[in-house]
């Protein structure tokens, strides 16, 4: 990895990595671990990048796969230790952002299934249905319907909390 690799190839996409990692974690510590692991995996996988897709798509895909893998591992571990810590962590990250509505939206997003979280995050990042499908590895025709369904669910949760 060149010394500029992080600055040139990762940092411009840090926004989406941060947003994705926040959606899959419920504490600052986990968030930083996920972020670090995503960066590490991007570095490890860079030689496999074949330029068949855009670098940004590649980064999103790795970020998503890492988050899903870590989440699966964490779930396994947390099943053994269902404790007060989990509740405390959830509360802690409910205030990760200074905007209260955004915190409520993130809490709602965390209630979605892993894939629905990815779909809505990419939709909110204004990715096209084709790009979302490409990143997630699904049929683009299903994305529109899925987004609509997720938005309805999110709206219901968010409105219920804000009002």
């Amino acid at each position, binding site marked *: *990895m*060149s*010394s500029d690799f*992080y600055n040139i190839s990762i*940092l411009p996409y*840090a*926004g989406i*990595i*941060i*947003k994705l990692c*926040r959606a899959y974690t419920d504490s600052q510590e986990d*968030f*930083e671990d996920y*972020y*670090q692991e995503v*960066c*590490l995996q991007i*570095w*490890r996988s860079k030689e496999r990048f074949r330029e068949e897709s855009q670098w940004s798509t590649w980064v999103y895909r790795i970020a998503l796969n890492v988050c899903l893998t870590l989440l699966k591992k964490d779930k396994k571990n947390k099943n053994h230790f269902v404790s007060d810590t989990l509740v405390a962590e959830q509360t802690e990250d409910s205030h*990760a*952002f*200074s*905007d209260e*509505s*955004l915190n*409520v*939206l993130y809490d709602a997003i965390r209630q979605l299934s892993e894939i629905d979280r990815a779909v*809505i995050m990419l939709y*909110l990042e204004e990715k096209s249905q084709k790009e979302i499908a490409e990143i997630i590895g699904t049929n683009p025709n299903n994305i529109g319907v899925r987004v609509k369904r997720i*938005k309805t669910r*999110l*709206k219901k949760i*968010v*409105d219920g909390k*804000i009002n």
Partner: protein
Amino acid sequence: MEKSIEDIWKEGFLKTDALIAPKINKLYSQKSIHVIDKFKRMFKINLIAIVAFSFIFLIVSFFIGIPITGVIFFVTLSVLVFINKKLLNDLEKIDLGVSSYQYLKAFNQWKNKQIAINKRMSKFLYPIIFISMILGFWFKDAEGIPLGERLVNEIRIGFPDVYLVYGIPLIGIISVILILVLLAFFGGQIYKWDLNIVYGRVFKKLEELMTDIESLRS
């Protein structure tokens, strides 16, 4: 008025400073540990494979009638594995608590020592393996007499004037000695070539990592 999901998202990230990337100070140490762990795994697998191969070959050699080759192979490779296992133990002693740069430096020193020792051993290893094959097949039973003797008898029928030293054609002795010398001379090079095939990618990554950290330190 109620905001849409899209508006909450956009406005939220306009206001917030939450998009500041966390520091990735542990990235280099994680990468160093990852690369070195990969090397350790490969090295251990390699040693296990050598032990398994030498053991299986020892058994097979008795069945196919070349026990001398099998025994020499087994002893030589056991010595090789023993020395490398000792070297691996030294590698495990490298302190994980030091900085990535020091960790990589320590690994590099270990790697250079390991390569130097193995390079020296290879000057003997390849000739020993070659001579064990010659001896194994020479003494292999061929209808009551050793295969080597039978071969010499057949050569003598075709070339009655062939010069023998202790019953072995001189040309054969010279050829074997020549090959042994070549193997001893190029043993180190053969080992490095072999090493590059197995660990080339890992070593390249380590070099890149070192260069990277050094450029960050300068």
